């Protein structure tokens, strides 16, 4: 059933092309804002590049996950999902993994303008950067999907979502910045591997809590 739900998410995006495109455009406008606010000074940007990247991803995630849950509310499609004889925790899992896939696709595309427009050098070990980025995306989406599930029926959900999500996701952002900073500086992975543990625990804990709690928060 999880695969049915996941395929639905991916197919919906394939048909509507809303999420990745809007996340991408938003990401590019943030990069533009970065360029203007830092005067594209090599010194400023090189020091802050990892943080700037993950802050951008955070904002883009809010947009993406909010849209992902919003289209469930159009035409009351969500009621079809929750009335179906399926485990509702699977809905959380499908939102999580599909969100992770969309975020990763968007990130892969936006990395090039990020590095090129802001005149930052590519990391010395791109494979390691990619691998850790995947791990981090998974953690961000685990938190985002759960919080969005809670916020989806609330008034002003587009405000409530970031207000609830940002403090909860702060360990991931701290860890992501440290890991990316380490990779960009070419540090040996032992210097930053502790942060992978923190991200791993977020994935496990939020995954479990989300799967368990989703049944309680989906009903009107």
């Amino acid at each position, binding site marked *: *059933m999880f695969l*049915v*739900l996941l395929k*639905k998410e991916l*197919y*919906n995006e394939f*048909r*509507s092309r*809303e999420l990745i495109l809007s996340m991408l455009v938003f990401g590019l406008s943030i990069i533009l804002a970065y360029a203007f606010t830092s005067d594209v000074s090599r010194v400023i940007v090189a020091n802050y590049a990892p943080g700037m990247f993950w802050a951008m991803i955070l904002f883009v995630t809010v947009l993406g996950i909010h849209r992902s849950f919003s*289209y469930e509310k*159009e*035409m*009351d*499609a969500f*009621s*079809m*999902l*929750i*009335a*179906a*004889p*399926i*485990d*509702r925790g699977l809905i959380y899992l499908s939102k999580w993994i599909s969100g992770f896939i969309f975020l990763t696709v968007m990130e892969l595309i936006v990395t090039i303008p990020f590095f090129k427009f802001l005149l930052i050098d590519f990391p010395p070990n791109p494979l390691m950067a990619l691998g850790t980025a995947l791990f981090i995306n998974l953690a961000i989406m685990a938190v985002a999907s759960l919080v969005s599930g809670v916020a989806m029926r609330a008034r002003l959900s587009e405000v409530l979502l970031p207000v609830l999500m940002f403090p909860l996701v702060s360990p991931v952002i701290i860890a992501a910045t440290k890991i990316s900073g380490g990779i960009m500086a070419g540090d040996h992975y032992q210097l930053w591997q502790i942060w992978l543990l923190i991200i791993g625990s977020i994935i496990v804990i939020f995954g479990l809590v989300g799967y368990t709690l989703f049944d309680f928060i989906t*009903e*009107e």
Partner: protein
Amino acid sequence: MLSVSHLSKSFNRRPVLADITFEIATGETVVFMGKNGAGKSTLLRILARIMACDKGEVSFQNHDLLKGAPTTRKDLLYLGHASGMYSALSAVDNLSLALRLRGMRTSKEMIIEALTHYGLFDQKDDPIAVYSQGMLQRLKLTYAELAEWTLLLMDEPFSGLDDDGAKLMHDAILQWKSEAQSLCLVLHDEAKGKLYGDRILRIENGGIQESLCF
């Protein structure tokens, strides 16, 4: 088959349903009627497990519907006001998904055949965002036709339908009644209520008043 006891639901402490108790037997058609805002749609949504109730127990096919596993709602189908489907996907895709989530593997041919019967062949591949209200009602009818269920909950089945559509709905309801399927309809038209219902349950001030149809 369905037994509701002491069901209560409030919105901001204002009771909409207060201590509702009723039963639906196998093969029976029950019609819910009442003023706007009486709680008919709310009741159906609670039975469909879309809305949470404050208190009460519901037993469906001798299983606890409210606290039981997801499989307890396998034979219960809910069709609400809105289409309950994804606006970006086509009718075929939506039906395929909805049926698959109910554990049914239905072939595309069967789905298209059903859509054709209900007059939606030409628009079967269009995203349902472009459908009119009447077309969405026909889509819901197609869904009810294809899905396996023993109790169907339908909220205002005739709303938005033209004469042809209304005839199709009428025929479908009579067909289901003749097959001894259980139906739970929310209707506004008294005449239709008496025509289709074995019993009419009027929801008023949070309570239920029953009248039989002969």
